[in-house]
């Protein structure tokens, strides 16, 4: 089962790679153009994924059917996935301090179930300290967002 999924993923990546490099000049093997490596590498990935597919197929018929272990805490994982993706999308508008505060609350309180006291302490202190540190010392202009400073 593991290998079937893996083969599928790589097959998809290879096909996407083929489609998007098809129009780039490939050149010849003795004078490769910009599209040479992407195109043939994608082709190789497709072939390798087919190889993995048939290998796992043979394996499964031999009775060796191992399943993917699904985490018992998968709901928390999904919420962490979604929260982090949202963070990346809103940080520019909402600002570093506020979005970091929210993501730390999500991770500490709702994913890891730490106490509210610790959660609030850490999620207030860390973003503020890092924000101050980076703006004054590292000169990384973190997004201010909706906060005035």
């Amino acid at each position, binding site marked *: 089962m593991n290998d079937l999924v893996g083969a599928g993923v790589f097959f998809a*990546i290879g096909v996407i790679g083929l489609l998007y490099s098809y129009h780039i000049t490939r050149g010849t093997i003795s004078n490769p153009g910009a599209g040479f490596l992407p195109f043939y*590498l994608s082709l190789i990935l497709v072939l*390798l994924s087919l190889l993995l597919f048939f290998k796992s197929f043979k394996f499964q018929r031999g009775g060796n059917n191992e399943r993917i272990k699904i985490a018992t805490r998968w709901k928390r994982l999904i919420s962490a996935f979604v929260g982090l993706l949202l963070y990346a999308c809103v940080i520019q508008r909402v600002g570093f301090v506020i979005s970091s505060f929210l993501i730390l609350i999500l991770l500490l309180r709702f994913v890891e179930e730490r106490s509210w006291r610790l959660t609030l302490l850490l999620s207030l202190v860390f973003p503020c300290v890092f924000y101050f540190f980076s703006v004054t010392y590292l000169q990384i202009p973190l997004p201010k967002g909706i906060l005035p400073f």
Partner: protein
Amino acid sequence: MGIFDGVAYGFSVALSPINIVYCFVGCLLGTIVGVLPGLGCAATMALLLPMTFNLEPTGALIMLSGIYYGAMYGGSTTSILFRIPGEVTSVVTCLDGYEMARKGRAGAALGICAIGSFFAGTVSVIGLSLFAPPLAEWALKFGPPEFFSLMMLGLSLVAFMGKGSLLKTIMMAGLGVLLGTVGLDPMTSVARYSFGSRNLLSGLDMVIIAMGMFGISEVFKMIEEPVRMEQMISVPKGFFSLLPNRQEWRDSTAPILRGSVLGFLVGILPGGGGIVATFLSYGVEKRISKHPERFGYGAIEGVASPEAANNSATTSNYIPLLTLGIPTNAVVAILLGGLMIHGITPGPLLLKLHPDMFWGLIASMYIGNAMLLIMNLPLVGIFARIVHIPSSITGPLITFICLFAAYGVNNSAFDILVMIVFGIFGYLMEKIGFEPAPLLLAFVLGPMIEVALRQSLGLSQGSFYIFISRPISAVTLSIAIFLLVAPPLAKVVRGWINEWRR
């Protein structure tokens, strides 16, 4: 500049107060990272890279290197006391180290680790100072064909890096090379795989991918399954309990020596890193031991030799990086990325153009090794206590620092998105048996190989003869091809022998 002048010059650089501080900070951070399970060396270095942009490059390199070899010291502590390898390279140490601890010799095991690591690290730095300059001198004559062949060798050795199946490792490496082509083509400036996005035109950033696949995906693993403490051995109290007794000294002197040499040799090879060195040296010790049955039940040789090999390999990893500009494993690849951000291209010219950095780094390793020995022996109890910080606190904080650092690389929120996507991808792929390290290394090597190939073919007007007509290129390329063909070939041959025996 002769080697002794060079080392002396290096000490004058490394002993400046600010560089001593960098070295100390690096070693301290490294030890902490090594002790903390879950937070790997690669992730930490990727995290700290953006924070070093403001430092001058020599100091940054000294600190990042300190993290690398410091983590190798720290990784063994948790292996011995908790049977949790703090780093992948100290997996072997768990076998006999934990057994020694259960028999009440935890102090001796920790002591021999620190002493063996110090000895091996020093041997390896001496080797580095002796061999790197002539090699760099020689490598000045290399052209694109030589570099192409050397990097092909590096890439084919990647196949041996993974623990899992060969096919999967190759697939991950292939994907790494493919990801390396994203952005403008370096030769003709044609956009590849930019999907119409302006952010992707400049290509994917190695540091971002490393943070995603090694930092964020580790956090996901901790969320899925919190790190559990096994039965813990109490930390030995007092300095003298860390000293091995006379019999243990006698048993471990030769293994430390063998481990140092073996680790040094393995570490020079591209693709060879601490993991290979530790397993190899454990195997060698077991093979030549008069009492192989003691291994796995607390044999001190099984602790001393792999730990020595590990630290020795860590240092000799720098030889291909500093002389050829070729990274040998994921951690060194991040170091390379860091240097490039500072506008310094490691390679044969490094010694000529930046002797202060070259020799300063080498000298800082002598100093760092001594610092680590001093730090690790008496303070081992304090470091062991770090493990007790639950992963439910470290996880969110690591995530936060990753988010902060990812933004800092290019001041762009898009990088955060890329990091998260690679974090999720890396986590899921590792779940089904695809490891991230080959991808990262191939990602770094891929574009370099492509450019070298096209430059070589430009030189020879399209003839592949150029790779065979030059002796260095011919030899390395044939080794690379042999290595790629060898594993399946070995399988076939083994099959024949088995059949013939029947």
